[in-house]
């Protein structure tokens, strides 16, 4: 008997585990995992309003850096509240939580979006011009919608095709 044969293979049998190692079960189990990930990809279709709402929230938060001191804090609070509302709505709709694994599955697009937002914050803080602030907010909104959708597509593709997150 090999070491591998000694492993306990617990399969469901009317809810009760049975002990019988079978190497072929390993492949069947891996296939189950792959199918579950593909099923998850189908459940994770992000509604159109999510990236649009996220774009508006981020545009507000970036442009709030140029607001007068008295208006900045309320704008940030509104932005954070909007973010919370979006996340809760997404969770209620899909029955799934927000996970940092999503970020890992679409790392390239997610990192690109974070960079755009960081640069936007820098631009608004350094160039204190209303026109520049407005233009930056528009760029953040468009980037969030476009890159967010790309990230969503990449994430679902990876789940469907069993591609490992790097």
């Amino acid at each position: 008997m090999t070491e591998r044969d000694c492993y306990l293979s617990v399969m469901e049998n009317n809810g009760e585990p049975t002990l019988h190692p079978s190497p072929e079960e390993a492949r069947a189990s891996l296939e189950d995992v792959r199918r579950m990930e593909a099923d998850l990809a189908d459940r994770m279709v992000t509604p159109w309003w999510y990236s649009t709402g996220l774009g508006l929230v981020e545009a507000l938060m970036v442009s709030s850096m140029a607001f007068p001191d008295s208006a900045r804090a309320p704008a940030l609070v509104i932005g954070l509240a909007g973010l919370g509302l979006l996340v809760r709505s997404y969770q209620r709709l899909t029955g799934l939580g927000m996970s940092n694994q999503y970020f890992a599955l679409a790392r390239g697009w997610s990192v690109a979006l974070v960079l755009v937002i960081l640069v936007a914050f820098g631009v608004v803080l350094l160039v204190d011009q209303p026109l520049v602030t407005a233009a930056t907010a528009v760029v953040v909104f468009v980037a969030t919608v476009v890159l967010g959708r790309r990230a969503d597509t990449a994430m679902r593709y990876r789940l469907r095709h069993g591609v490992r997150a790097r």
Partner: protein
Amino acid sequence: MVCGPGDGMTTRPEFDEVIHAPNRLKICALLATATTAEFGTVRDALGVADSVTSKQLKVLAEAGYVKLSKPTGTGGRAKTWVTLTPAGRRAFQGHLAMLQQMAADISQSVG
């Protein structure tokens, strides 16, 4: 198969009898990506009855692999949410690595 950041190479293959049962393996596979899911979503993904889902989640919860919570104060009927714990994630990744090792052995013996 999808693994989280930083795992893979460092995951020690380890067979886990709690996770190996098909429905529990599927639950862990779902939560390994989503981390948190509502009870109804887990049930629908498994395609089994409430009682079966409940039973499997209880076993995972007793092993410390998932945490069940029922957030209140949101209005309406409170729903149960299932979250994969760090211990559950480690156990699932170790189990997955073991399955892959076993499957690779089969491929070699076939080839």
